[in-house]
């Protein structure tokens, strides 16, 4: 045996093995191209972690929204998964619902819907998300737009009446006294963003800071996933810790909105917390398939999302701009990827070297 105990270093205790022969049908050794080891993260694993990161906000959202919220989330997942399986069946492709990506799409869609929707709307939304948002492009990795947002956009346009009126009236949030919510409600009777719009027009006076606490801990005016900013940030922390998303996207997106809103005269913290910005910036804009590949590409994408969101919030009659902002930037992603590319190692150095050689040649 080759082992010999050595100095003071961490010694290994090895049992002398009897020399056995390596006799074996040699051709049975397995071969492959390097690398011969792989990281343990898989597509399924990543999707699983994102779902896990969404779990706190999902659970709390369902707690606040009650049974109907549960049905909304469940139905959008069912719609997405069933459609994925059905289309793959029809096209004689391997059915990949076990990779959890359709589950995640359904869950994300469900979280962006109001809790009191009738059950068939999320079901339809999930189906549309997968069919028009993903499979039509050729499945996972090929779609241009975030599937969950495609699904949401379609039902938002088709059933806007439902989409704007199916919110809760008062929350069950333990940290929020329903009195304070009622107080705000009685003044505005509208979503915080809409109310602040009225404030800007001078038709209303209500301080944005009165919304902080409900937005952070228990927000009744929003979609299921907008229920608590704190829990979304918990989810983001999980993703960042696992290295699954690039910090640049949420930071630049929210940062841009905060700065622009502040310039335009909105309370910056309120701008960050209200509406679907946080869930959009942390979970929608960070969708792998539909944002740029490079660090700078991601920055451009995120700042673009921020600018679009602010524009839509301030200058359109839409209640919220996050969805269309992200979809718009999704559309620009192929272009960003085409023009924002990393400079490979040594290419700049080569150009410099050639330039120097030319100068020398000129001088000579």
């Amino acid at each position, binding site marked *: 045996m*080759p082992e010999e105990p050595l100095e003071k270093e961490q010694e*290994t205790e090895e049992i002398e093995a009897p020399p056995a*022969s*390596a006799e074996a049908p*040699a051709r049975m050794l*397995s071969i492959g191209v390097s690398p011969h080891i792989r990281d343990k993260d898989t597509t399924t694993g990543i999707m699983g972690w994102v779902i896990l990161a969404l779990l706190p906000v999902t659970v709390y959202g369902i707690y606040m929204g009650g049974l109907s919220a549960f049905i909304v989330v469940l139905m959008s997942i069912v719609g997405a998964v069933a459609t994925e399986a059905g289309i793959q069946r029809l096209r004689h492709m391997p059915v990949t619902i076990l990779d959890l990506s359709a589950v995640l799409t359904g869950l994300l869609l469900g979280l962006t819907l109001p809790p009191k929707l009738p059950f068939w709307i999320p079901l339809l939304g999930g189906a549309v998300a997968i069919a028009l948002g993903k499979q039509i492009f050729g499945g996972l990795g090929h779609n241009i737009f975030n599937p969950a947002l495609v699904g949401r956009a379609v039902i938002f346009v088709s059933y806007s009446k439902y989409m704007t009126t199916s919110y809760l009236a008062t929350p069950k949030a333990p940290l929020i006294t329903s009195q304070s919510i009622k107080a705000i409600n009685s003044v505005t009777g509208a979503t915080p963003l809409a109310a602040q719009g009225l404030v800007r027009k001078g038709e209303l006076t209500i301080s944005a800071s009165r919304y902080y606490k409900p937005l952070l801990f228990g927000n009744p005016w929003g979609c299921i996933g907008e229920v608590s900013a704190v829990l979304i940030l918990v989810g983001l922390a999980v993703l960042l810790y696992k290295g699954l998303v690039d910090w640049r996207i949420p930071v630049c997106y929210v940062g841009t909105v905060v700065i622009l809103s502040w310039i335009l005269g909105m309370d910056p913290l309120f701008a960050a917390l209200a509406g679907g910005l946080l869930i959009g910036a942390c979970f929608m804009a960070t969708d792998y398939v539909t944002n740029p590949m490079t660090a700078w590409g991601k920055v451009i994408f995120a700042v673009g999302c921020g600018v679009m969101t602010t524009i839509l919030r301030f200058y359109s009659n839409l209640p919220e701009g996050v969805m269309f902002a992200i979809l718009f930037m999704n559309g620009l992603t192929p272009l960003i990827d085409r023009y924002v590319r990393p400079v490979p190692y040594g290419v700049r*150095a080569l150009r410099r070297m050639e330039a120097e050689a030319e100068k020398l040649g000129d001088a000579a």
Partner: protein
Amino acid sequence: MGLTDNIKRALFTRGGVHPPANKLAASVKISDGPNPERVLIPLTQHVGSPCEPLVEKGEKVLVGQKIGDSEAYISAPVHASVSGEVASIAKFTHPSGRDALAVEIISDLEDTPAEGIAPAPDPLGMEPGDIRARVREGGIVGMGGAAFPTHVKLNPPSDKRIELLIVNGAECEPYLSADYRLMVERAQDVLHGARIISRAVGAERIVVAIEQTSPAAISAMRDAAGSGGEEVFTLPAVFPQGAEKTLIKTITGRDVPSGKLPMDVGALVDNVGTCAAVSELFLTGMPLVKRIVTVAGDGVTGRGNLRVKVGTLVRDVIDHCGGLEGGLGQVILGGPMTGLSQYTLDVPVTKATGGIVVLSKESIISEEPGHFTCIRCGRCVRHCPMNLMPYLLGSYSDAGMWEELESVYINDCVECGCCAYICPTKNPLVQLIKVGKEGYSRRKRKMETLKKDKEEKSLEESNA
């Protein structure tokens, strides 16, 4: 490294991966390998032209006797690693997977050295030209795995000045520990070899680069250097820190221009194994006939860092370590990130074989998809040490779009394997890149011949 450094690294740096180190044999002293009855010495163990055999079937050879050489400049002679009789000169399986000419020697087990093997009296006083000649005759090649003939590296063109010799002690491949043991046990030899090399190229500065995860090697080399002026540079532990270009960037902050050599930035990189081999050559006169090989992995019973005679069959080395464990798995020559997996154990250890890593059936990767599936997660882009876009390399190659491959700098890829390692869908990116390089250069050649034909034709026409 401070906390802020770590945060900076986490937020901004890109390139490289952190595979589990699995340095199973790092604490095992270097010891002698098997004494084989039969060796197969390939005539190509280096980058460059193959050697011509200098011996015939039936001829008696002695240890250190030159048995193959070439007229070509980029080549290195090969020597007998045992004494005995030449049984045949024929094609045998080569670690590269192809069959190649090798000299088969049946050993008399006596290890009688050849005549004329004598130490060089004062290597540090020798002329650079003499050092190079001796290094060439000693058959020394880069021992880090690339196996580029060392005498060629020691002879830069006159317009290139080499100021810095980097002694590469970054053994970033998992499992391998041969270089680490060398530095711990034979620090003086490594430095001696480095000094000889730096004399040959006139480098004023010697930097020994070691990963921060090998404190024992760092202190051994520091002690050995003493007041000699050699610096020890602590590297971050990331794969592929030992790759030449990455190493130069970390130490000097400069990029080696694309398609150029380290000497273009005034640097020369030599592996610690190469330095030790040079030192041994000058101290004993014995050419490169043995090298240190790490044997490790969960598919082999024992483990160790063995001094193995070049040409020993992998089968004999594994038997020496107690044999395969748990049936047949995968046998990799080199490290698991860039090494070559073998379909038979009857391949010889060559000058370039730094490790024999044996993975059991259970630890072999099995989840490669049948076709290129990319979820655009961007990990490959983030982790490529060369700042490439591996997913584009992979998808263009997969689609056979050879002409597009230039625009994504395929020839700058060093095939380190980081992209394939980190890819969540387990795309075989390195394989695709190899195929792509092949396809790209074939197409380029074809275009060039086409162009030439056209030119000739138009020339003929204008002549007519």
